[in-house]
C-alpha cells in the first residue's frame, strides 16, 4: 500500500505543477486576444476616457507580468480575485469601490454545483448502462444484439451533440411533452424538480459518452476470453453469464476504469454546447461568456477547475486500476 501513497503524493505534486502551467498558458492566451475587458464591455460607444477609467479601476493598465504575479499571489492564498463583470457593475451603480463586489468564487460556486449535478446525473445513468450493455455485448458477441448495440452507440457518438439534443427535444419534449426542454434551474429548487429539468441534457450527454465506455468494456472482456482461467471456468460448468461477470470482468477493470474517468472528466469540462442548447446554467456557459468579455479572473478559475477535474479523475482512475489488481492489493 506504501506504493499507492507514494503515487498519490507524486501525482498531486505534478498536478499542482500542471495547474501552474495551465494558469500561465491561459493568462497569456487571453492577453493575446484582441481587445480587453474595458473595450469589450463598453462596445461601440466607448470613449477613450471611459476605457482608461475602467482599465485603471481593474488594474488592466499594469504590465501583464505584474498582473499575473499579483493574481498568482492571491490565488496561492486561496483568493481567486474578483470578476471583472461584477466589479464593473458595482462601480457603475455608484457604490463604494469594493463594496458589494462578487468574488470569482461567489460567481463560480453555484455554476460549478450545477455542472457537478448534471455530470453526476449523467454518470449515474451512463456508467451503469454502458457497463451493462458492454457486458451483454461481450456475452452475446457477434449476435444481433451486439451489432445493434455497436451501431447505435457509434451513431450517437458520431453525431454532433446539439443535433442529438434537438432530436431528444423533438421526441421527448415536443411530440411527447414528457420532459421540459429548458433546464433553467435555480437555487432553492427541490431535488425532484431539478432532476426533471436536468433530465434532457443528461440523456443527451449519456448518448455522447456511452459508446466509448461500452465498447471498451466489451473489448476488455473479449480480450480475456482466451485466457486459461476463462477456459477453466467454462470447464467447471459455469453459466456464460457467470464466466463473464465473475471471471472476466474483475480482470478487465483497469482499462474500463480509465475510459470511465476520461468520460467523466469530459462531462465536467466539455459540455458547453449541451448547456447552451438547454440553457443550463453550468460552468461551461460561464466560461464562454467570460472569454467573450475577457474576464480574466473568471476564465482563469474555470480553467483551473477543468484542469483539476482531469488531474483528479485520472489520478483516481490510476489508483482504482492499481487496487483492481490483486497482486498489488495482496502482496506476497
Amino acid at each position, binding site marked *: 500500500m506504501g506504493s499507492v501513497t507514494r503515487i498519490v503524493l507524486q501525482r498531486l505534486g505534478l498536478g499542482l505543477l500542471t495547474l501552474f502551467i495551465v494558469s500561465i498558458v491561459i493568462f497569456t492566451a487571453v492577453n493575446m486576444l484582441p481587445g480587453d475587458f474595458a473595450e469589450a464591455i463598453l462596445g461601440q460607444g466607448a470613449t477613450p476616457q471611459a476605457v482608461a477609467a475602467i482599465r485603471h479601476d481593474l488594474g488592466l493598465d499594469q504590465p501583464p507580468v505584474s498582473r499575473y504575479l499579483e493574481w498568482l499571489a492571491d490565488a496561492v492564498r486561496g483568493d481567486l480575485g474578483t470578476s471583472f463583470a461584477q466589479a464593473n457593475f458595482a462601480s457603475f451603480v455608484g457604490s463604494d469601490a469594493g463594496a458589494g463586489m462578487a468574488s470569482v468564487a461567489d460567481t463560480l460556486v453555484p455554476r460549478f454545483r450545477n455542472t457537478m449535478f448534471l455530470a453526476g446525473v449523467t454518470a449515474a445513468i451512463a456508467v451503469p448502462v454502458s457497463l451493462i450493455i458492454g457486458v451483454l455485448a461481450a456475452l452475446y458477441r457477434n449476435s444481433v444484439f451486439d451489432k445493434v448495440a455497436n451501431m447505435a452507440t457509434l451513431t450517437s457518438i458520431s453525431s454532433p451533440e446539439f443535433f442529438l439534443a434537438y432530436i431528444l427535444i423533438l421526441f421527448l419534449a415536443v411530440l411527447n411533452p414528457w420532459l421540459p426542454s429548458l433546464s433553467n434551474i435555480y437555487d432553492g429548487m427541490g431535488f425532484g424538480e431539478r432532476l426533471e429539468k436536468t433530465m434532457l441534457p443528461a440523456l443527451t450527454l449519456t448518448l455522447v459518452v456511452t459508446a466509448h465506455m461500452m465498447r471498451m468494456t466489451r473489448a476488455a472482456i473479449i480480450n480475456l*476470453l*482466451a*485466457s*486459461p*482461467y476463462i*477456459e*477453466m*471456468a*467454462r*470447464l*467447471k*460448468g*459455469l*453459466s456464460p453469464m*457467470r464466466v463473464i461477470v*465473475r*471471471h472476466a470482468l*474483475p*480482470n478487465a477493470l483497469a482499462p474500463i476504469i480509465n475510459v470511465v474517468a476520461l468520460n467523466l472528466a469530459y462531462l465536467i469540462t466539455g459540455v458547453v454546447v449541451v448547456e447552451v442548447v438547454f440553457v443550463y446554467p453550468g460552468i461551461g456557459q460561464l466560461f464562454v461568456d467570460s472569454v467573450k468579455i475577457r474576464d480574466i479572473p473568471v476564465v482563469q478559475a474555470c480553467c483551473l477547475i477543468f484542469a483539476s477535474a482531469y488531474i483528479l479523475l485520472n489520478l483516481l482512475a490510476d489508483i482504482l486500476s492499481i487496487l483492481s489488481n*490483486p*497482486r498489488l492489493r*495482496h502482496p*506476497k
Partner: protein
Amino acid sequence: MNDNAPLLKIRDLRIEGRSDETWLPIVNGIDLDLHRGEVLGLIGESGAGKSTVGLAAMGFTRDGCRISGGSVVFDGQDLVSASADAKRALLGKRIAYVAQSAAASFNPAHKIIDQHTEAPVTHDVMDKAESQADAMELYAKLRLPNPDEIGFRYPHQVSGGQLQRAMTAMAMSCRPDLIVFDEPTTALDVTTQIEVLAAIRRIVDEFDTAAIYITHDLAVVAQMADRIKVLLKGDEVETADTRTMLAHPTEDYTKSLWAVRSFARPVKPAVAEGSVPLVSVRGITAAYGKVDVLRDVSFDMHTGRTVAVVGESGSGKSTVARCITGLLPPRSGMVEFDGTPLPADYRKRTKDQLRQIQMIYQMADTALNPKTRIGDIIGRPVEFYMGLKGRAKRARVNDLLNQIELDPDQYYHRLPSELSGGQKQRVGIARALAAEPRFIICDEVTSALDQLVAEGILKLLARLQDELGLTYMFITHDLATVKAIADEVVVMKDGKVVEQGGKAEMFRPPHHPYTDLLLSSVPEMDPDWLTDLLAERGADNLGDAAIDKM
C-alpha cells in the same frame, strides 16, 4: 449400471481447426475407451492433438475448432450432440479438468478456495461451508502446507507446485468420475514435479477416479498410466498397457520416441593443466534491486567444451548469463575472457568483445522479430559485426542457412511465423553464428521443443562445436540434456554454486545432497520408479520438505 461398459467411449472422433477460410483436420478418427478407475496416458509431440482430444473428451473444443464427426459417449450420453446446458451439468461435477499451468488457470482476482467451491455450489453438490471444509481436507490429503489457511490466499501468493496441487484438489471438489490432466507437471521443476505426481496418484487411487493423463514426457506417463495411447498428427499410432508399451513398442514411431533419451556425445579428454579458460566467472555477486540473486559465483569454461549450468527456476542460472553478457553488471566480481577482464557493462565493451559472446534464447518465438524475414534476421549481425554488404552478405547468410540445415532458396524470404518451432530455434543458432563468436550461451534452448526436435538441435549444436571449436555455456534444468551433451557441470541453488566438476564425476555418487535430490527426481522409464522413490524418501519427505532440510 453395467460395470463392463466403459465410462467414456470415443468413436471415430474427428476435429477440424479453422485456418483462414478453410477447415483443416486436426484429429482424424480416434477411438478411445476408458473404464472406471482407469488412467489412460495420452502421449505425442506438440501438434499431435493430445490436448484437443482431452478437451473433446469433455465435449469441449477451443475457439476456432469444431468436432466434425464421431461420438464422445460419457456414461451413456453423447457429448457431441448434447445441448450446452446438458454439458454444463456434467462439467465440473462429473468430468473435471486440470490444466497445464495452474498459475494461468487460476483466476488472479479470486481466492483459491472461492474458486474451489464454485463448482460444488453451482452444481448443488455441497453448500459453500461444506465445500470449504472439504477443500481443507483435500488440501491436507494433497500435503499442502497449512491446509486450513492456504485456500484463503490469492493464486499469486502460492508457489507453482502448490497451485498445481490446489488445482487437483479443485478438480476433485465434486468427486468426478473422470479427470482430464493436461500436462499438469510440464511447467514445474523436477523436484516439484514429484510432489505433484505423487499427489495426483494418491488422490486418483483413493477416489478410484478415471483419468486421461496427457503429457509429452514418456517417463512421467510411465509412472501415472495403466494404459498408454500414442498419437501422431491426429492419428493413433498404437495403444497398449504401460508395461507392454515400454518393453515392446511395436510401431517405429514409438520406438523412435523411446530412443531419444539415448543420445550422448563421446567423452572429451580432460582439460590440460594450466591452460587459460576461455571464459572465467570470478566471484560474481549480483542483485536485482536490493535482492541478491547471485552470491560469489565462480567457474571456468574452456575452449571447445560445453559447460552445463543446472538448477531449478530461481537458482540464478540465467542471471549468470546476464552478467557474462554484460546486461546486468555484477555488484562485485568479474568476468574474464581469454585471460583479459571484460568491462562489467556491455555498453563499455568493444564491438569485438561483444561479437565473441553470443546468445541463443529459450523462446525462439519471441526472440525473432515476427515482421522480419529470415534472411534479414541472420543478415543483420553479418552486416553489423562483419561489415559485409550486398552479394557478400547474401553469400554468408546462405552459408549460415546451410550450416543449420535449412535450404537458403526455400527459407531466405520466409517470416518466422512460417517456420516450425525447431526451425525457428535453428535460425536463432544461425543468428548467433553470424557474429562468428567463440563463446555461445544457450539458455534453455531445447526446453520448449519436443523431444525428437530437441534431439535434432542438440546434434546440430554438437556438430557445430566440433567444426568451429565453439565453447558453450548450456543453461538447463533438464538433466537428460546435461547427460547428452555436457563436458562439465555446474549445479546452482539459491544463487550459489553447490557443486561443479566433470560430467562423469557429477553423475557418479557421492553427490552433494542437492545434486542427489535433482538427479533422483528425474523420472525414469521404469513404471515402478515413482513408487520405489516415494518409499525410499518416505512419503512425507518430498520436494519442499527435502529441500528445506538442506
